């Protein structure tokens, strides 16, 4: 998922590049307006390229870091069926990271640079993965809600103006539906189970509901990149628009499960046909994004350790390849 609201600045400036001729910019915008796809070797404004590198790589980092909270439960899944499903899901998320890094690389950055930016804490990833998965029910809630929010966000990205990103998203979207459904099935089993299991499902929803709503990013009134990204058709819907779609789709599912959305102000608005949510605590969102969430340190440390522990494997593979090439020459 997880680029919406994640298109936060990493410290690079996206101002207009005055060296770019107005004529080229106009021709570029005309192609976008005509729904033409932009491909890797096509001319594009610097800011378009930088915006995409930032968004796609943040998206890729999120897929990779997102393996942490779920991987946490693979060895403790309650049955072989659940374990096989969770393992397959986590493997998919790794694949999503790989598709997305590859899409970002078409814009002229290297995989190594992108990974370093994550490990050195210079790059952002979705705030949701800085929350812990404390119980098995959290795995259900993550699949149902986090992947559910991901789907909401990713489907319009399949029509993104940048071809390699759009194609990666089509591949990702094909795989997401299983993620959400296996999560919902876990929630359904728990919510039809013992009182303790029901309480566990409710507790997971209580803790994850608001962080999931924050996944769609800051409200439209202060989203820094929205307008330009919409003009460039990188984004097709605003943060608030997608968040509303998600709430409308999810509230009836929670009702079916017999669970209560932890929002006393939540109400159905007859006039608009929408579920209207209470106020979101944006201070918490900013705190988590800035590194102050419950698991930020642990998530990054896990990535750093995995990368460091894999270094000898990468070095050995390179040495092996070099030796065989020397022999063949």
């Amino acid at each position, binding site marked *: 998922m997880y680029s919406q609201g994640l298109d936060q600045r990493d410290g690079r400036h996206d101002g207009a590049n005055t060296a770019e001729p107005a004529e080229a910019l106009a021709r570029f915008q005309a192609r976008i307006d005509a729904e033409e796809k932009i491909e890797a070797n096509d001319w594009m404004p610097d800011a378009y390229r930088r915006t995409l590198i930032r968004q796609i790589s943040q998206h890729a980092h999120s897929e990779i870091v997102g393996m942490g909270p779920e991987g946490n439960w693979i060895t403790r899944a309650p049955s072989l069926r659940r374990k096989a499903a969770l393992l397959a899901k986590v493997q998919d998320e790794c694949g999503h990271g790989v598709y997305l890094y590859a899409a970002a690389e078409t814009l002229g950055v290297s995989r*190594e640079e992108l990974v370093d930016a994550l490990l050195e804490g210079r790059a952002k990833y979705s705030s949701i993965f800085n929350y812990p998965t404390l119980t098995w029910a959290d795995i259900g809630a993550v699949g149902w809600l986090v992947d559910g929010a991901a789907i909401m966000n990713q489907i319009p990205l399949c029509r993104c103006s940048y071809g390699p990103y759009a194609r990666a998203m089509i591949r990702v979207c094909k795989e997401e539906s299983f993620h959400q459904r296996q999560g919902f099935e876990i929630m359904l089993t728990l919510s039809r189970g013992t009182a303790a299991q029901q309480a566990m499902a409710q507790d997971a929803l209580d803790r994850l509901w608001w962080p999931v709503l924050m996944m769609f990013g800051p409200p439209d009134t202060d989203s820094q990149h929205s307008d330009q990204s919409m003009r460039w058709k990188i984004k097709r819907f605003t943060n608030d628009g997608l968040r509303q779609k998600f709430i409308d789709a999810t509230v009836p599912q929670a009702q079916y499960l017999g669970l209560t959305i932890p929002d006393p102000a939540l109400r159905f608005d007859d006039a608009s046909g929408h579920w209207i949510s209470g106020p979101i605590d944006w201070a918490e969102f900013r705190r988590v994004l800035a590194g102050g969430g419950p698991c930020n340190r642990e998530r990054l440390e896990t990535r750093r350790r995995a990368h460091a522990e894999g270094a000898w494997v*990468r070095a050995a593979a390179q040495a092996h390849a070099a030796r065989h090439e020397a022999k063949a020459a």
Partner: protein
Amino acid sequence: MTESPMRLWEVFIRARNGLAHQHVGSIHAADAEMAVQAARDTYTRRGEGLSIWVVPSAAIAASDPADQSMLFEPGTTKPYRHPTFYIVPEEVGHM
């Protein structure tokens, strides 16, 4: 701390018997054998293919998008290369 870059490969997959291999994406790997294995894990987890080709990305030569009109416009301005350019009376039947 940047390591020496892992080589990039383009991945092509034959989805079904009788179809051509089609480009599906790219992968990093130190050599061809590992590239095939990584491509299998990344691009064929749900029966998407029967055969994989990997090609070093650096080996691909591509046309320049700036040359698009020079290269391809002649192909669209020669209607006499298409069968519908020629008149065959209806009574002759299908040809």
